């Protein structure tokens, strides 16, 4: 991590925020909360790990890469793996039935795929909000 006085815990293990509370620094322990993101927001995607579903999405949109999904990562909310949906400003929990890959890059690809499936679903909360509030 850059700088000399990073005030949160370093991410050393892919399961750090699942196995424990992820609180490392003295200040985090005092607060009882993690400081900063629970994943590396600057991690660029490994394109050798793109899933077939995501390849189909890229082709549909006419993009040569993951585009906005480059900023989507698997995070950890309340000790559980989750992906953040900016359209609802909330975390989407990864179901317990899904086995997590061993590395963050594959987890990120899984998170991207799940997020697209969720956002494009007719059950997405935005569909209801759209019907209720759309003005034009």
């Amino acid at each position, binding site marked *: 991590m850059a700088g000399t006085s990073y005030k949160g815990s370093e991410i050393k293990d892919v399961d750090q925020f699942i196995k424990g509370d992820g609180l490392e620094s003295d200040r985090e322990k005092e607060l*009882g909360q993690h*400081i900063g993101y629970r994943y590396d*927001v600057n991690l660029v995607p490994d394109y050798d790990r793109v899933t077939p579903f995501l390849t189909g999405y890229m082709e*549909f949109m006419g993009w040569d890469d993951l585009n906005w999904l480059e900023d989507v990562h698997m995070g950890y909310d309340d000790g559980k793996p989750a992906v953040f949906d900016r359209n*609802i400003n909330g975390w989407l929990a990864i179901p317990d039935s899904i086995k997590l890959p061993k590395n963050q890059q594959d987890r990120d690809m899984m998170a991207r795929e799940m997020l697209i499936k969720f956002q494009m679903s007719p059950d997405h*909360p935005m569909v209801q909000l759209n019907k209720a*509030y759309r003005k034009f």
Partner: protein
Amino acid sequence: MEGLNQDSVSHEMGMHTEPLTGRDIKTMFTLENEGGYGYHDAFDVDYNKRAEINADNMEANEVNNQIRDLMADGHGTIVIKNPGAKHSIAVGILNRLNLIIEGSLGYFGVGLLDGPNVRITGRVGWSCAENMMAGTIVIEKNAGSTFGAALRGGDLVCKGSVGSRTGIDMKGGSIIVGGDTGAFSGFMMQRGRMLVCGNAGKNLGDSMYDGTIYIGGEIRDLGVDAVPAELTDQDKAWLTRKLKQYELLPKKGVDHFTKIVAGKQLWNYDNLEPTEKKIVL
């Protein structure tokens, strides 16, 4: 009166009375992809169906309404001719679309996009692609200040040079500049990537909270809490891929790029009392 009618719709749908406690997002969808690759309310467009708009004697809102009507009619490729550097052209498009703008745009052009691929043959004014969510925008010439302000996602490319405060407050996405960028680029950047093949003006990355800036040329000076970091092999692979994609890869490759990140000295969370921090987060 239209607004009042819509309010009554939301009441009829029970949006104001439904219990929110105990509601779990996991119960609201299945893993099967029922909705395809597009938003539920997106227009079904065909890239091979092409239309043109002559914006010469049109107001910006007329142009924007016509783009919407053409998408509703299934047009997936739209060409705007004679944009005349009008402000706020082609904003708020939440659909996949090939949009070609033959000419230059004024202020706040192509803002709030979520999905389209846009090519602009001329120049753009201040705050181009402000708050863009997804998609690609390629500008063939130069851009004004606050290029990609508050960008959320997608690729914003200027093949020429850009003004000051590029990517101010950006929260995601990639800003790619073929030429130089002005002062205070990356000011208060929160995440995302900025990639400049040329030089950067003074106070680069001032008060940046997170994110990454890659500079291929000279840096006049760094802003508060912006620090150099190691350019990893993963960074190099990503830079090469991205620059090649937009035909901007320098002949000498990317090894000479300087990587700038946040020093995180300005992270002041640990100066707050625990109760204050809980409110902030």
